[in-house]
């Protein structure tokens, strides 16, 4: 079994990717373990494609049925905010990729720095989303006319969208999808941030090396996937019918 640098005692912690010996007992080699872990994450991502895919399918059906309401709803979203957030997320993918790269060449400090940068950028994205949601949700509370409330339901205010009649109801479908899709996406980022923190901590503790940094690779795959979802959400939600 390969000794890893200064970790001479190869203490067996069955089932734990421990600092001493990362090889888990049921695998015959570190290579097999890494390939299995990587395949596992890709299969998980495949499942996520179908998870978001259900929402994209619903979006496709409803957009083709209610083009006017969708265009009006989309117009109401701030494309500049969406554009900014898209760049932030793409930058976070760069820092994530650089983090994996740093692990592969054994630069521990840079791994931590890049992962922290990824977390920072991700947090900026989430912060922006918080404000975006806030301005749509706040008007829905309290008594009064609820002008500007864009949460679907009894208090939804379609007047800001300049829609009359049935199209006003259809606009609720747009916003249902807006909140569901960006909400699910944001939830994935909210789950990702603490995991990134954990990986950064373990990197700081010296757990990773060029021979073994699989967890960094895996969390990177997850983060890039979440970025890809946003790459589609941005034009589909923010840029409909801006002609």
């Amino acid at each position: 079994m390969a000794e890893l640098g200064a970790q001479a005692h190869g203490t067996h912690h069955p089932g734990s990717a421990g600092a001493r010996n990362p090889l888990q007992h049921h695998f015959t080699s570190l290579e097999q373990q890494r390939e299995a872990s990587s395949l596992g994450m890709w299969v998980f991502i495949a499942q996520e494609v179908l998870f978001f895919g259900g929402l994209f399918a619903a979006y496709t059906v409803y957009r083709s049925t209610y083009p006017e309401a969708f265009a009006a709803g989309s117009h109401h979203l701030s494309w500049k905010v969406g554009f900014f957030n898209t760049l932030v997320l793409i930058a976070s993918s760069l820092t994530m990729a650089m983090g994996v790269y740093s692990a592969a060449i054994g630069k521990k400090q840079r791994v931590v720095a890049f992962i922290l940068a990824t977390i920072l950028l991700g947090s900026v994205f989430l912060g922006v989303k918080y404000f975006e949601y806030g301005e749509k949700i706040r008007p829905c509370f309290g008594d009064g006319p609820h002008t500007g409330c864009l949460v679907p339901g009894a208090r939804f205010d379609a007047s800001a969208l300049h829609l009359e009649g049935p199209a006003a109801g259809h606009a609720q479908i747009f916003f249902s999808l807006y909140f569901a899709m960006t909400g699910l996406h944001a939830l994935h980022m909210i789950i990702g941030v603490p995991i990134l923190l954990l990986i950064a901590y373990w990197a700081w503790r010296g757990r990773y090396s060029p021979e073994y940094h699989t967890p960094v690779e895996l969390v990177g795959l997850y983060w890039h996937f979440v970025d890809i979802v946003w790459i589609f959400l941005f034009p589909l939600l923010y840029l409909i019918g801006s002609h």
Partner: protein
Amino acid sequence: MTSEPRSLPAEHYLKAGWDLKSWLLTTDHKRIGLLYLVSITLMFAIGSLYAGIVRWNLLVPDGSQMSAEAYNKAFTGHGVVMVFFFLIPSIPATLGNFLIPLMIGAKDLAFPRINLLSWYIYVIGAALTMWALVSGGLETGWTFYTPYSTVFAESNVEVAAIGIFVAGFSSILTGLNFIVTIHKMRAPGLTWFRLPLFVWAHYATSIIQVLGTPVVAITILLVALERIFHFGFFDPNRGGDPILFQHLFWFYSHPAVYIMILPSMGVISEIVTCFSRKRIFGYSFIAMSSLAIAAIGFLVWAHHMYVTGMAVYSAMVFSALTYLVAVPSAIKTFNWTATLFRGSVQWDTPMIYVFCFIGLFLIGGLTGLFLGNLGVDVHLTDTYFVVAHFHYIMVGGAIMGYLGALHFWWPKITGRKYVESWGKVSSLLVFVGFNLTFFPQFVLGYLGMPRRYHAYPEEFQILNVLSTAGATILGFGYMFPFSYLTHSIFRGEPAGDNPWGAKGLEWTTQSPPLTHNFDVIPVVTEEPYDYASPPKEAVRG
């Protein structure tokens, strides 16, 4: 076969710790398989109780036994529990977990901790759903059709939906684990076309679990969101489309029925070849047909929706594809039959269940073709014909396979033999009870009795009474294996490594196996099911 042993081996996985912690924190795939076995047996009992309530109500035509609402809750509870908490996990989570590493010469699955997590997720999902069912119930049918479920139902739809959503991730993670394990952890020399057909079946099943379940997960989440936050996804008053719900729901729920049947088919392949003492006929066709069923199974979902108002041209497409999906199942049936031909048939309990499966699955499958036909389905949809059809597949097929599998691998799992005569008696009871329950339902459906109705026209009573009588016999039939199999754990005769003289790596290990399965990872040189040559001795380290 090896000579009769007097006792169980000194070391084995059941002895590796006796306390609760060693079970609840285990990462041993075999123990996890047993944890699932206990859980799903409990859920099967609950689902059966619901079935009993349904059949009891249908003894009289006027619906006087209980209120319509109570009846709706009964058939919904039956469906939800049986589909999501019994049939979907059944063979994969119990026997798949137990056997796949043994069959491929591995020491465990690829991700043992995720395996344990899958079980906990299942338990949490089951607990949530059961809480919803007992504290107010659910009366939407297991299909949750909108807008009834999202707008009008007054029951615990959100909680049940979330419980099912959670349980879905158990299924996804199990599938993920199996896919990675089968790709990456096969023993040296074990090429894809030397794999047991049980493994092929689970590989195909896992693909469906990974790609299909997320869609129903998001759909059921949308139902919960609509209930809680009043989003209008599926509310026609706000432009929502209830048919879209059905599309998204059935996109998973049709492939789900293949999750339920494929593992059972894998079991049949294993048993039929062993008890014919003959190499299985058409190995590669059976292997490939599992993949074909998984793939084509995703193309047919709207055959559940012909009469909903969906576009007729689309319905035609789905009907044609539905006929296509029957082909790989038929291929398997032909190959199993060809295996029997000129074989030396041994009539032990597992084999009896194989015969039950082949005959009853045939009937279930053929009646599926009637239902796949657009014109005929207009008359048969939402009648008891549909109910009979899917019970022939799920109970006559899947559960028979499950029982056969339990009996076949019981000696490996426990190290002990069950009493064979009890096995035969029970299988007879189950077979008779099953047919008496469900054959009348084909007739009822043909005559026009609708499903999910609390009361029915008087002229249907005699058939309903027969059906309930059958259900009673079936219920007793199921209690027998539960008791004699449990009894054999404590008092059964030690079985030895390979009591059936079967081929397959799992039979080269001791019974029960060691925690780490193999002291020395085997190297495979034989083709599968080579019954012409004598069975291998157990490999000891």
